[in-house]
């Protein structure tokens, strides 16, 4: 009888301890080291725990939007017998890369040359562009370039098998402007939303005015596969340019090649603070269609924006669809004083 009641009391104590553990789980392993972080409105918060904030530091970046912004790939250049310029590129597709697309969030990105977006292909109107495409992924992939080319170079009916399949795309660069390229295998939505896209710029034979040029691909990621984006960005990493402002000079012409490739959402847009820009839809005409601080783009729409800041300081640029802005599609220009 005594042993029995002892057993009962042990059982009761165990139950109470277990219950307390579940109800007050935080009692153990508290840390004392204080950390601070800033909210989006500038309040300073202190914590003894970890900070959940989309701030990218150089160490954790697998894809560097700072580098991508002004990186143009002109290819291996040679001259053809007829005097034309040949630009040769190699693009390798992969679909097994796990990429940290926001701090602590790991996503299976499908990539052209290891990054999302793929490299920015740049040529001058009339150049012969030759792209050796190698598919090292596990699924079928292609590259479909927007622009003018032969039907069999369209990257739609020529699927390239995974595990090393190859195809060479060849066409004359044109028309002048900024165009997207992307994989065109069905389901298209899946292949694009996973990251198989990039920018293709065709410069006019008479070069555009000297400018500080950059590429912004407006994209997003649906990390939980519910056909709604969890993250939005200009150039992949949410809030990147907010925490790492793009440095530009006052009184210098800025030219942004912008492409909206955003999957799932009907529209995207681009709003610039403290300034307006000349907008050239698709970059195909030399006369701007608008002078505005706000353009609306549906998927695949793109254009060139040109502007100059007079006053130095920090200026936001972001989607004026504020939902996108608050899920990462927000950045800053830091306008520096002109060097004396």
């Amino acid at each position, binding site marked *: 009888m005594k042993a029995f009641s002892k057993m009962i009391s042990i059982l009761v104590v165990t139950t109470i301890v277990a*219950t307390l553990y*579940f*109800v007050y*789980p*935080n009692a153990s*392993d*508290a*840390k004392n080291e204080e*950390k601070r*972080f*800033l*909210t*989006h409105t500038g*309040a300073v*918060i202190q*914590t*003894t*725990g*970890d*900070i*959940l*904030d*989309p*701030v990218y530091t150089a160490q954790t970046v697998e894809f560097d939007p700072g580098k991508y912004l002004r990186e143009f790939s002109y290819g291996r250049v040679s001259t053809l017998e007829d005097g034309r310029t040949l630009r040769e590129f190699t693009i390798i597709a992969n679909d097994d890369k796990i990429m940290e*697309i*926001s*701090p*602590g*969030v*790991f*996503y299976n990105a499908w990539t052209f040359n290891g990054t999302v977006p793929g490299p920015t292909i740049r040529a001058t109107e009339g150049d012969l562009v030759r792209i050796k495409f190698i598919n090292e992924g596990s699924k079928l992939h292609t590259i479909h370039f927007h622009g003018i080319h032969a039907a069999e170079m369209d990257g739609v009916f020529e699927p390239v098998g995974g595990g090393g399949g190859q195809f060479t795309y060849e066409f004359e660069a044109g028309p002048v402007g900024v165009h997207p390229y992307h994989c065109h295998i069905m389901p298209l939505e899946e292949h694009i939303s996973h990251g198989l896209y990039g920018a293709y710029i065709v410069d006019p034979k008479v070069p555009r005015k000297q400018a500080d040029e950059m590429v912004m691909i407006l994209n997003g*990621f649906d*990390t*939980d596969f519910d056909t709604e984006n*969890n993250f939005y960005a200009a150039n992949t990493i*949410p*809030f990147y340019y907010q925490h790492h402002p793009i440095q530009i000079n006052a009184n210098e012409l800025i030219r942004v090649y912008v492409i909206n490739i955003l999957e799932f959402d009907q529209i995207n847009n681009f709003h610039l603070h403290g300034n307006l820009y000349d907008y050239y839809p698709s970059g195909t005409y030399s006369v701007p269609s608008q002078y505005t601080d706000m353009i609306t783009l549906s998927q695949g729409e793109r254009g060139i924006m040109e502007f100059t800041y007079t006053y130095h300081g920090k200026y936001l640029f972001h989607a004026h669809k504020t*939902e996108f802005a*608050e*899920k*990462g599609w927000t950045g800053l220009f830091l306008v520096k004083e002109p060097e004396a």
Partner: protein
Amino acid sequence: METTKSSKTKTILAGVVPVIILAAMVAYLFGPSSDLLNFGVSLPEITIERIDFVDSEIQVVVRNTGPIDVSIAQADVNDRIHPAAIEPDKYLSRFEAATVRIPFEWNEAEPYEIGLTVQDGTRFSQSVAAAAPAMKPSVELASYFAVIGTYVGIIPVMIGLLWLPFIAKLSPTKYKFFLAITVGLLLFLGIDAVEEGLEISSERLAGSFNGQLLVATVVVCSFIGLYYASEKLVSRASGKITKSVAIALMVSIGIGLHNLGEGLAIGAAIGLGEVALSTFLIIGFTIHNTTEGLAIAAPMARQKPMIAKLAAMGLIAGAPAIFGAWIGGFQYSPIYTIIFLAIGAGAIFQVVVSIMGWMRQDEKGLLSAPIAAGIAVGMIVMYLTSILV
């Protein structure tokens, strides 16, 4: 002496050997062969257990309720990303919990959805119908809950007890009818508590806690435990405590546990900002719970009036509503609530069995019209008054 000792050792050894083998097996499965058993994809799962609205901040208690370790990557309010802090840290092993602090200027009475994203990009969310400032224990608030508990618990039970003189004057048949009503009332309360427990477990408790089985386990344990205790109490009942008093006492303990659960639910509902406790709701509970007084009064009706004892039983049955409201309002925990509700249900079922056993002692047994009618009436009365709540 030697032989008995060695045989005892053998017995213990025989009992322990399977446990050791099982432990070795588990160690093997976790260790060398763990790769063999990993079929399929284990998906992370977290549960947001509590959301508190404090000064310029939303505090969220999150628990890893999935099969694998997780790390929390991001917090959002209404699906908009916000910088936040997580304490003690963002890595949660199985069943570990953490508090996420999201600096946010929230608006009172507006609905909010809080989302947390884990390492693979999956977002988990929980909604709050109307943001209300988290209740910090204060004398004012404690007394507010005490008043609610009094209205909902003590007063109605006391009113119900006033039926005692009426029941005392009834003929045996009519008395049986009223006892049977009590059985019906209690059956209803017991089922109600089980249903409430299951509801909370499906709404607020992660699947990994097996909420439904928790309810079943606690109900059965509570039933068995109280059955044992009441048998002791009733068998020892003599002189001061008669058998009927013992039964009435058990009834009031059962109802007290039930009211504790009810108080928890009310306190939690206010604390979670789910209801504004209206006068109407209080009236509903008051009418509903008046019937509980009847349940205590009925077994005592054949006694000499014992005002003090009766009042004490009323307190035992009613006062837990106050404690429940305190616990529920200040420190809500779905597990606690479910456990209390299930204990209450087990207690009530035990009381039902006791009263039925008591009624059967008559020559006619249980199969009589007044008893059948009484149980039915009890259930129906409870159902109708429950609509008010």
